[in-house]
């Protein structure tokens, strides 16, 4: 990316490097968010609805994992995927796939914990009524997830936002390789270290716009939900 050109200029002229970076950021974070959702939502619902020994402790740990430091996750995944690590033969280090894995690990606890809280709150509300209608366990889970869908979407968007904004994990497992594993956040880190502060801030603004759009989506989803279900 050229040094003394503003980020908006790059945006307006359709600079391919910038667009490749934005595209990669979205793909990595969306994929990670989706994987985290596929694992986190059922997991959260399961914890919310089943009684098991150590449930309270599990919830405390799950909530704490929302604050997993990205660098720690990055380092751990790096050591796993390194050639001299247990999964080295997969050859995944320094690829976007590794970035998706690291971010999925970061985001899954967030989605699971938020799902757990949402489903549990709704369960407290619905419990008697569902018992009165003699609703079996499978239908119960589906009902709770469906009826809580707007809150769950908010949780998903929270997870995505977290992934889109982080840099610590993906810069370690991705290597910030130009054209392959360079995303918005890692590019900002790079340009900052090169002293291209204006460009870095410009890129940061573009990233913020994406994050604000995501937040706007979450807000719109909630509003639509409230309007529909009352």
């Amino acid at each position, binding site marked *: 990316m050229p040094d003394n050109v503003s980020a908006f200029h790059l945006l307006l002229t359709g600079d391919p490097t910038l667009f490749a970076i934005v595209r990669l950021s979205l793909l990595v974070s969306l994929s990670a968010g989706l994987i985290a959702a596929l694992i986190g939502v059922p997991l959260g619902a399961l914890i919310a609805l089943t009684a098991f020994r150590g449930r309270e402790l599990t919830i405390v740990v799950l909530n704490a994992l929302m604050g997993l430091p990205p660098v720690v996750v990055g380092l751990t995944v790096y050591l796993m995927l390194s050639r001299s690590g247990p999964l080295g033969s997969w050859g995944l280090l320094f690829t976007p796939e590794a970035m998706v894995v690291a971010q999925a690990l970061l985001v899954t606890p967030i989605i699971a914990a938020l799902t757990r809280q949402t489903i549990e709150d709704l369960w407290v*509300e*619905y419990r*008697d*009524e569902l*018992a*009165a*209608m*003699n*609703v079996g366990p499978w*239908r119960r889970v589906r*009902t709770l997830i469906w*009826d*809580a869908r707007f809150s769950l979407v908010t949780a998903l968007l929270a997870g995505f936002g977290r992934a889109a904004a982080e840099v610590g994990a993906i810069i370690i497992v991705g290597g910030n390789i130009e054209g392959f594993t360079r995303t918005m956040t890692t590019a900002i880190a790079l340009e900052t270290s090169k002293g291209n502060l204006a460009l870095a801030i410009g890129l940061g603004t573009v990233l913020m716009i994406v994050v604000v759009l995501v937040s706007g989506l979450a807000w719109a989803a909630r509003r639509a939900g409230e309007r*529909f*279900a*009352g």
Partner: protein
Amino acid sequence: MSVRTSSSDLPIRFLDVDIVAGDVTILDRLSINISPGAPTVLIGPNGSGKTTFLRAAMGLIAPSGGRITWGGREVSVPTRRAILLQRPVMLRRSAAGNIRYALAAAGVPRADHEQRVTKLLSLVGLQGLEGRPARRLSGGEQQRLSLARALARDPAVLFLDEPTASLDPAATKMIEDIVRAVSAGGVKIVMATHDLGEAKRLAGDVVLLHRGRMVETGPVDLFFAAPTTREAKRFIAGELLI
């Protein structure tokens, strides 16, 4: 429609039933029969165990002592019973959606849903409100929708826990009219109420509960005209509060 009896849940028999929660005894060696026919109305002060009785008769709570039988059976799947809880919760769906849900939960095939939903909504006077989010309905409308949900199960026995407690007279009348119609259609009604007037209007039999025990029972006219127990007399006079 005739009164349903064969392989039915009636009569429901409580034999020395205790229900205890922690240190508190809610039902105390309660023995009572619920037989087919006109509505059975439960009355009694707060905390007398009316709600717990209804839930136990529905099959939601197991007795700590004693036995409950449905049509002679100790274990009974609640497919032909339905209950309207004291504070019914609307699902986050439309009015029609709530009924569709109840139908699906009761195992009614999807093809029959549309028709049944329409019928049930008009039965409770909510036609035209199919698409309205259920949480946006008024108190009275929500109560009627819950009634429709309960009736979606096509029950032979319908338990109602103070269905008109929070309603104005107009809404109360609507509910009572529906209950009367449903009862005339052959469904056994078992209803708890705070309103003695309502008991007089709807009951075949009255059951007075006090501190988890059955104090007195009998046909409604007889009960109010000539109560035999001291508690019954005091309750009718409005003096029995707890």
